[in-house]
């Protein structure tokens, strides 16, 4: 009997391995250059006082991603596919245009992250940009979905550098624990925009598209859906654990010394005298890994989603002649995204600013589309949202909408 039990345990584990990937990868790409910068700033400027926000953020992330995953498994279609079939070509076209623009901005931000992390290791931007963009491009164009996913899963592992640097920084764990469990918030503009920034960087519009497509690509069966759920929940926890350690590192070192920073690379540099060279290097390596990782996924997912919605052939297993739009869009995003960084005196700050505005504007729409689609019986059958889940989901969407409005307001005025 115990042998049978072991065998069935083993089988469950094997199925789980076959199903995992999408959720964990999506969540980790989420900790990209922009994410690391935001968490670093939150730690450096506000100490441990924002740690508590990671708990509700994790919950919201799980709620939203679970819906995307469920739609992928039940309908076997990508999000842009579903939007196209339900809302027609016009809506799809404008939504996807906004997504392409936003993701182009995000891609530039990732390459900027790569450039500054490489800079810390003393590598010139003029060398790192061509090399890294080519590396990213080749990985996706020449690799198969399976091999690409493996590389991505390995990249996920490297986020451990932040956890290690968290221990090197030697924080006051007592205080960390207290801050995590006791929500405190002061209603001043700086705190509000920090909170909005934290939420906005963790829950981005592209994720929902990417996650759903990746799940469809995996061809997960309904009976194995529970493993996808585990995948998504694990991913959501991992992303916030990494965020937690980044905040802790910066709070324990930079905040206590009153050092102000503006980006993740500044944080890495500022860490050297306080927590030692290795902590600084680990931090920079984490940034490099995260930026490269996101720089390969963002353009890929964008090209994928656009072709899916417009009905063009797509996928990394197609030849260029079979899927020209897919490869063109992907290549443009990668090479132009990296090329922009080489422009001397680039107003990078304004590009980031515009990207943030677009991200913030797009997200509520995407959430509303998701909620309409997931409650459509013709698509989801009996797997539509339960009433209580719907209430939570709509409240989440409303809160996100409100936060986006606040974010826009705070950026513009």
């Amino acid at each position, binding site marked *: 009997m115990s042998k049978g039990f072991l065998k069935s345990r083993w089988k469950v584990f094997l199925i789980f391995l076959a199903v995992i990937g999408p959720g964990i990868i999506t969540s980790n790409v989420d900790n990209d250059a922009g994410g690391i910068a935001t968490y670093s700033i939150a730690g450096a400027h506000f100490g441990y006082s924002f740690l508590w926000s990671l708990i509700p953020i994790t919950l919201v992330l799980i709620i939203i991603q679970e819906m995307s995953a469920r739609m992928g498994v039940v*309908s076997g279609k990508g999000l842009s596919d579903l939007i196209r*079939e339900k809302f027609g*070509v016009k809506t799809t*076209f404008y939504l996807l245009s906004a997504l392409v623009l936003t993701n182009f901005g995000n891609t530039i931000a990732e390459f900027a992250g790569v450039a500054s992390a490489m800079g810390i290791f003393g590598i010139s931007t003029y060398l790192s940009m061509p090399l890294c963009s080519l590396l990213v491009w080749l990985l996706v164009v020449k690799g198969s979905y399976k091999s690409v996913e493996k590389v991505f899963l390995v990249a996920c592992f490297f986020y451990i550098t932040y956890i290690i640097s968290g221990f090197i920084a030697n924080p006051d764990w007592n205080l960390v624990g207290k801050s995590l469990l006791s929500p405190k918030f002061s209603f001043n503009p700086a705190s509000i925009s920090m909170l909005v920034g934290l939420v906005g960087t963790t829950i981005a519009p592209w994720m929902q598209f990417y996650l759903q497509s990746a799940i469809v690509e995996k*061809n997960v*069966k309904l009976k194995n859906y529970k493993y996808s759920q585990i995948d998504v929940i694990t991913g959501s926890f991992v992303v916030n654990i990494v965020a937690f350690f980044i905040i802790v590192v910066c709070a324990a070192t930079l905040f206590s010394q009153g050092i102000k920073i503006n980006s993740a690379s500044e944080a890495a540099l500022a860490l050297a005298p306080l927590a030692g060279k290795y902590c600084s290097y680990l931090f920079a390596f984490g940034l490099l890994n995260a930026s490269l990782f996101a720089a390969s996924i963002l353009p890929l997912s964008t090209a994928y989603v656009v072709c899916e919605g*417009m009905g063009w052939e797509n996928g990394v297993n197609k030849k260029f002649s079979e899927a020209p739009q897919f490869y063109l869009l992907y290549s443009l995003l990668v090479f132009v995204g990296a090329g922009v960084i080489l422009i001397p005196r680039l107003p990078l700050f304004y590009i980031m600013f515009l990207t943030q505005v677009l991200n913030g504007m797009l997200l509520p729409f995407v959430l509303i589309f998701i909620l309409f689609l997931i409650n459509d019986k013709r698509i989801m059958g009996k797997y539509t949202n339960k009433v209580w889940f719907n209430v939570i989901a709509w409240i989440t969407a409303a809160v996100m909408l409100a936060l986006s409005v606040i974010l826009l307001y705070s950026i513009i005025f």
Partner: protein
Amino acid sequence: MKKASLKMFFFLTEIINHRVVDSRGEVVGKIRDLKAVLGELFPKVVSICIQKKSRGGPKNKKEIFEIGWDNVKTINQNIIKLKEDVGDDLKPLKTEKNHILLKDEILDKQVVDTFGAKVERVNDVHLLLAEGELRLVHVDIGIRGILRRLKWTGWVDGITNWLFAYQIRDKLISWKYIQPAAPDPQRKELKLNVTLRKLNEIHPSDLADIIEELDGQGRTAVFKSLDLQTAAETLEEVDPKLQISLIEEHTEDKASDILEEMAPDEAVDLLLSLPDEKKEKLFREMDKGKKERLMELLKFVEGTAGAIMTIEYLSINQSKTIKDALEKFKKTTDPLETTSYIYLTDDEEKLAGVLTLRHLIFNPPDTILSSIMKKELIKLSIEDDTNTIADAFKKYKFMALPVVDRNDRLKGIITLRDAVDAKFPEFED
């Protein structure tokens, strides 16, 4: 503008959401869809589907009603006029098995272009109004269809004309080659169109590509609509990950029928990746002979000659004549690549020699096979690994090589193609 006297083309999206007006000039509602009957090359529209103008009544505003085509007086890009006054008693929309809703089931959905053997997404549906009948004639799959729906044709044409003296053209595919891929929502099966080229007539490798391209439900529906043999041949070609999910969609008896039709080595590969209970259930449904042969193959270690080989080959006792061999050849339905050689065995089933088809044709029918057979044989052993197999093919350049067990008994053959697939798994994609 009587509908009977007119012959004109228009697109579905040009009339969708237009007002429907009755004989008194009263607005009845908005046109939401068209219902056509499948069964002819160019399906006839039988009714228009409308959503009633809300007259304050809050109850079920979303309900769709239908008005028979007989009652339509004028239909064009501006307005739809009815012959009579329909009043409040409209029939709710009902769809039968052979009915298709043009917007709901075709527009923006995936379809299979059976002529080009490709999956396309429909940007618009092209209709022809002639002799009082409205028929579905083309689907639009081009960029122009998208531009039209964005209402961008004007300025895009302006720019392309100005720059290149060129205009993006419509890309239409005749409906007679189109098979909708969205399954019937109630019956979960494909609504079969009368196409000039049937799905079953598409080459299995193309069908495999089509199935990979379709989304989940379309994929299953298309696969289920194939006949046994086509389904088996297609299944051999699709990505292994998809193979499993496709076979699992079928009931056990249908699934085992398909497995029986597949080449045994491919069927075994598929069986190996299924969970044990599923495998057993499938075996239970299979006929005995086939089952035993597959069971035999299942025993071999992956990556060895035993696992790669196929058991579809021609063998005959060496004491028989050419006439007997030809008789046997005539009866076989195995693919040509597995019958390029005829293997000869002695009374103990041991491999004794080989002949090619040419030998059979150019020698008199009563020749005893052993007198003309080639006795110097290159053989593989059941335990040989892929590298040894590849080396043998590289060195001797045969189309196929026999596989024998320890006692030199013939067990199967490996074709060049199987050897390539085994050595370079990426070729299989």
